[in-house]
C-alpha cells in the first residue's frame, strides 16, 4: 500500500469531514458523514501501521513523513513536518479507532445541534492526530491548542448541568500551562537556532535534539514544558480540571478526553521533555516518581468514595496516568515501552468505561450509583462488558491493563534513575486500590436486587452499542495476550530515545565540566556532536 501523503491525509481527513458536515442539513446525513469520515480515517491509519517499519531507524527522520518547509519565511525554521515513529504510531491508531466509536456512541446521545457536535468532534480528531504526528514543536503546539477549542464546546454545549464551569476550567487550566510552554518554545527555538541552526529560530524536533542545552537553562525550560504537560496528564495536584471536565462532558467527549486527550500530556513528556532536557529530566525523575505515585494512590482513594460513576472513572484516570508518568521517568526500556502501551491501554479501558457509563446515563439520566443497583439482571450484556472493562482497567493479567502496568512497574523497579524499589513497591499498591474502587462501582451499580422499576425496565445494549464496544473489548484481549506485535513497533524508537537521552546527558555534563574548567579563558566548546557520528549503543546499565 503506497498512498502519498498518508500521514497528512490521516490528520486532515476528519477536518475535511467537519467542513462537509457543515454543509449538510439533515441530522442523519451528518451522522453518517461523520461515521464514514472516521471509518475512512481509521482504514487509512491501518496503512500507517502496515507502512511503518520498526526495523528502520528513526534516528534521522520519522517514517511516512510529510514536510513543507515553505510555511514560514526564512527567518523562522518552522516547518510543517509530520510523520510516524514508534511513539506516535499506536497513539494515532488509538485516536483513529476511537473516532468511529465516539461517533457511534453519540448517535442518539446527542439530541440537538448535530452539525456542530460532529464537526467539532472531527476537528478535535484532526487536532489530536496532529499532536501525535508533529515533528515540529511549533506545529505540535498548534495542534495541541487546537484540541482545546472543540473540547471546550463539546463540554460546554452538550455537557451536564455544570458544563460551563467545567469547560472554562478545562480550557483555562490547560491554557496556563501551554502558554508558559509557548514561552519555553520561543526561548528554546532561539537558543537552539543560535547553537545549531545558523542563528535561525528552529522548532524542528531533530534539530532541537542536536542542541545540548546548558544546565541552567534546561532547568526552567524543563519546568515550563513539564508543567504544561503535567496539567494535561494531569498529575497530582494539577488534576482538578479533570473530574469536572469528565463528568460534565457528553459521553463522546469523555471518551476522547480520557482516551487520547490526556495522552497528549504523557506523549509530550516523552517526546519533548525527556530527550530535550535529559539532565534535568533525570535528576527530577525521583520527584516525578513521587508525584506520580501520590497520583496513583490519591486518585484511587478519591475514586473509591465517589457517588457518581463518571466521577469515579475520572479519578481512576488520574491514578492510571500516574503509572504512565512513573514509567516515563524510570528511564528504562521496559518501563518506557510499558508507558507507551499503557497509554493505549488506558484509552481502551477507560474509554470503554466511559462509554458504558454513558449508555447507562442515556437510559436513566443519572450517574449516581445509588440510583442503580441490580442491573446485572436487566442488562446482562452491558454488565458483562462492564465487568470486562473494569477488570482490564484494574490490570488483570490477560487483559490489556496488566501488560502496561507490569512493564512500567517492572522497569521502574530496576530503574537506576529512580533507584527506589520501596517507592515502586508502594506504587504497586495502586493495583489493590484499583480493584477496590472499580469493583465497588460494579457492586453498587450492577449487583443486588432490582428495586427500581426504571432499572428493571432498562433495555440491554442494542446492536449499535454492542457493535461499538466490540472493537474495544476485542482489543483488550488482544493487547492482553498478544501485545508483542505492538511492543515491537515501539521498541526501536524507545531505545533510540533512551540512547539519545543518555548521550545528551553525558554531553551536557562534559560541556558543563569544560565550562567550569575553562572558566578563566572561555573557549568555544562544541555543543553538538559532529554530523554523522555513529550512534553508540551504550544503553544505561540495566543491572543495579
Amino acid at each position: 500500500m503506497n498512498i502519498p501523503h498518508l500521514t497528512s491525509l490521516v490528520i486532515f481527513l476528519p477536518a475535511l469531514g467537519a467542513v462537509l458536515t457543515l454543509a449538510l442539513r439533515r441530522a442523519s446525513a451528518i451522522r453518517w458523514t461523520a461515521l464514514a469520515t472516521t471509518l475512512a480515517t481509521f482504514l487509512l491509519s491501518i496503512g500507517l501501521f502496515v507502512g511503518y517499519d520498526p526495523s528502520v531507524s528513526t534516528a534521522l527522520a520519522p517514517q511516512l513523513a510529510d514536510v513543507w518547509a515553505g510555511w514560514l519565511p526564512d527567518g523562522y525554521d518552522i516547518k510543517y513536518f509530520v510523520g510516524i515513529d514508534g511513539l506516535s504510531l499506536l497513539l494515532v491508531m488509538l485516536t483513529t479507532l476511537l473516532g468511529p466509536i465516539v461517533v457511534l456512541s453519540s448517535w442518539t446521545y446527542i439530541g440537538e445541534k448535530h452539525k456542530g457536535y460532529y464537526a467539532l468532534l472531527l476537528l478535535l480528531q484532526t487536532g489530536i492526530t496532529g499532536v501525535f504526528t508533529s515533528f515540529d514543536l511549533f506545529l505540535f503546539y498548534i495542534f495541541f491548542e487546537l484540541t482545546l477549542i472543540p473540547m471546550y464546546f463539546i463540554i460546554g454545549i452538550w455537557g451536564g448541568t455544570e458544563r460551563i464551569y467545567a469547560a472554562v476550567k478545562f480550557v483555562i487550566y490547560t491554557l496556563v500551562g501551554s502558554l508558559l510552554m509557548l514561552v519555553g518554545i520561543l526561548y528554546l527555538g532561539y537558543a537552539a537556532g543560535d547553537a545549531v541552526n545558523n542563528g535561525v529560530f528552529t522548532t524542528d524536533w531533530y534539530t532541537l535534539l542536536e542542541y545540548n542545552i546548558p544546565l541552567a537553562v534546561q532547568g526552567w525550560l524543563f519546568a515550563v514544558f513539564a508543567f504544561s504537560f503535567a496539567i494535561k496528564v494531569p498529575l497530582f495536584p494539577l488534576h482538578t480540571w479533570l473530574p469536572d471536565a469528565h463528568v460534565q462532558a457528553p459521553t463522546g467527549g469523555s471518551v476522547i478526553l480520557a482516551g487520547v486527550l490526556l495522552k497528549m500530556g504523557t506523549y509530550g513528556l516523552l517526546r519533548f521533555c525527556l530527550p530535550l532536557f535529559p539532565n534535568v529530566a533525570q535528576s527530577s525523575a525521583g520527584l516525578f516518581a513521587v508525584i506520580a505515585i501520590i497520583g496513583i494512590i490519591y486518585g484511587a482513594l478519591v475514586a473509591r468514595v465517589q457517588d457518581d460513576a463518571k466521577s469515579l472513572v475520572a479519578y481512576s484516570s488520574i491514578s492510571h496516568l500516574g503509572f504512565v508518568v512513573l514509567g516515563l521517568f524510570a528511564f528504562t526500556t521496559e518501563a518506557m515501552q510499558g508507558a507507551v502501551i499503557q497509554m493505549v491501554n488506558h484509552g481502551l479501558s477507560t474509554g470503554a468505561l466511559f462509554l458504558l457509563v454513558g449508555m447507562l446515563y442515556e437510559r436513566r439520566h443519572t450517574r449516581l450509583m445509588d440510583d442503580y443497583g441490580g442491573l446485572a439482571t436487566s442488562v446482562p450484556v452491558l454488565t458483562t462488558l462492564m465487568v470486562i472493562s473494569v477488570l482490564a482497567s484494574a490490570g488483570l493479567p490477560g487483559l490489556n491493563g496488566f501488560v502496561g502496568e507490569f512493564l512500567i512497574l517492572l522497569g521502574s523497579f530496576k530503574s537506576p534513575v529512580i533507584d527506589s524499589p520501596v517507592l515502586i513497591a508502594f506504587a504497586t499498591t495502586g493495583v489493590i486500590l484499583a480493584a477496590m474502587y472499580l469493583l465497588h462501582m460494579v457492586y453498587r451499580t450492577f449487583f443486588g436486587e432490582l428495586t427500581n422499576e426504571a432499572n428493571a425496565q432498562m433495555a440491554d445494549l442494542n446492536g449499535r452499542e454492542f457493535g461499538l464496544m466490540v472493537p474495544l473489548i476485542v482489543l483488550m484481549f488482544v493487547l492482553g495476550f498478544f501485545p508483542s506485535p505492538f511492543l515491537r513497533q515501539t521498541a526501536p524508537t524507545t531505545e533510540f530515545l533512551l540512547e539519545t537521552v543518555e548521550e545528551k546527558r553525558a554531553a551536557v555534563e562534559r560541556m558543563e565540566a569544560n565550562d567550569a574548567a575553562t572558566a578563566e579563558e572561555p573557549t568555544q566548546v562544541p555543543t553538538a556532536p559532529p554530523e554523522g557520528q555513529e550512534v553508540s549503543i551504550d544503553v544505561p546499565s540495566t543491572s543495579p
Partner: protein
Amino acid sequence: MDLSTAFPTLVTDLPAAFSMSVVGLVGLAMIVLDAFRNDHPAIPWLGVAALGVSAAWEATHLGAPQSTVFFETLRTGGFVAFINLIILLTGLATILLSVPYLNQLRYDYGEVYALIMFSTVGMIMLGSANNMVSIFLGLETMSVCLYVLTGFIREDEGAVESALKYFLLGAFSTGFFLYGIALMYGATGTMALPAMAAAELGTLSTRLLFWGGFALFLVGFFFKVSAAPFHMWTPDVYQGAPTPLTGYMSTATKAAAFAALILVLVHAVPGGEWQLSVAAVAVLTMVIGNVMALAQTNVKRLLAYSSIAHAGYVLVGLSAGTSAGYAGALFYLLVYAVMNIGAFGVMSMLEWDGKEGREQTLSSLAGIANDRPVLGSTMGIFMLSLIGFPPLGGFAGKYFVFAPAVDAGLTWLVVIGVLMSALSAYYYLRVVYVFWMQSADDVEATDPVRAAAFPRATVAATGTLVVCAVALVVLGVFFGGVLETTLGFFESTAMATAP
C-alpha cells in the same frame, strides 16, 4: 525652493498619495452630495467604492520599495501600503456594518460617512508619516473626526458623554504630545524623522531634552493606542460610542498610531534606550486591560478593556526593538483589526437599542447563538482568536510579537504576556458561553432581548463578518506569506534597524 520648482515634484509624487486623495475627495463629494440629496442611500456605497478602490491600489503596492515622497514628509512603499490596506479595509468594513446599524437608529446621515472618510485620510497620513508635522496633522485629523463620530447620536446621553470625555482627554494628551514634538525638535533641530536619528545629541541637556520630549511624545501615542495608564478613556468611550464606529476606533486608529510609532522607533530613535519604558507600559497595559476586563458585564466595555490588553501585546513586540518585533507587531495589527472589527460588528448587529447601549449586558444575550448562528459562530471565532487559539490569526499574531521579545531577552515580559493571555481566556470564553451554552432560562432576565429591535442584518454586513472570520482562519494557518511581507519591510536598507 519656490512653487514652480516644487510643483513638478508634487505632481510626480501624487500617485503616492492616491488613497489619501481618493478618499479625501470622495469625502468631499459626499458632503456636497449630502447637501443636495440629504442622507442619500448611495452615500455609503460611494465610500465603499472609494475605499475599495484605494485598498486595491494599496494591495498592488505591497511589494513596492521603501521610499519617501513629498519632500521626505511622507513615506511610501510596502510598509505604508500594508498599513493603508488595514486602515482602508477596516474603514470599508465599518461602513458596511454601519449602514444597518445607523438605519435602525435613523441616524444615517451622509456626514457620518464623510467623517469616516476624513478620519481615514488622517490615519493614512499618520501611518505614512516621515515627519513630525505629518504625524501631528494626521493624528489630529483622525482624532477630531473621531470625536464627532463618537458623539453624533445627540439624543444619547452616553454617546455625548463619551464624546466629551474622548475630546477633553484627547485634547489634553495632544498637549503632551505636541510638547514632546517641540522638545524633540528643539533637541535635534529638525522635524524629519530620519534626520532626528542622525542628529548629534552631544550634551547632556540635549539628550535630556530629546528623551524627555520623546517620553511626552509617547504619552500622546500611548493615549491613542490606549496603553495604560493613558487608557482610562477607552472603556467609557467605547461603551458610549456607536458600536460599528467603536470597532473602527479600536482598530484603524490603533493600526495607524502603531504604524507611526513604529516609524518613529525605527527611523527617529533607533536604539534601545526606550525599550524599558515601552516594556513597562506594555506590562501595565496587559495587566490592567485583562484584569479589568474580568469583571465586566457590558460586552462593549469588556471589548474595550480587551483592546487595551491587545495594545499591550503589540507593545511587547515593539519593545523587542528588532525588525522581527516590528514585523510581528504589524502582523498583529492586521489580525487584531480583523478580529476586533468583527467582534464589534457582531455586537452592532445584536444591539437592540442603541440609545440604551449601556444596558447591553452580556447576560441578556444568553443563548443568542441559537437564534443567530452565523453571528454566534463568527463571534466565537473572533473571541477565540482574541484569546490566541491556534489555528486562528490571533495565535499567529501573538506568537510573532512574543517571539522577538524572547529573542531580545525580554522573556519575563513574555511570561507576563502569556499569563495575561490565559487570564483573558476567562472573559472571552464568557462571551462564548453566554452566546452558545446558556439559554435565556439560565439568567435572571432583567431585560429580555427584543429581537425585533435588532438592526436588520444586511447581506453586506453579515458577509463582512463572515469574511473576517474566514480571514482569521486563513491568517491563522497561512500566515507565512503575510509575515514574510512584513518582515520584508524592515529588511531593506531604507528601514534597517538595529539595537
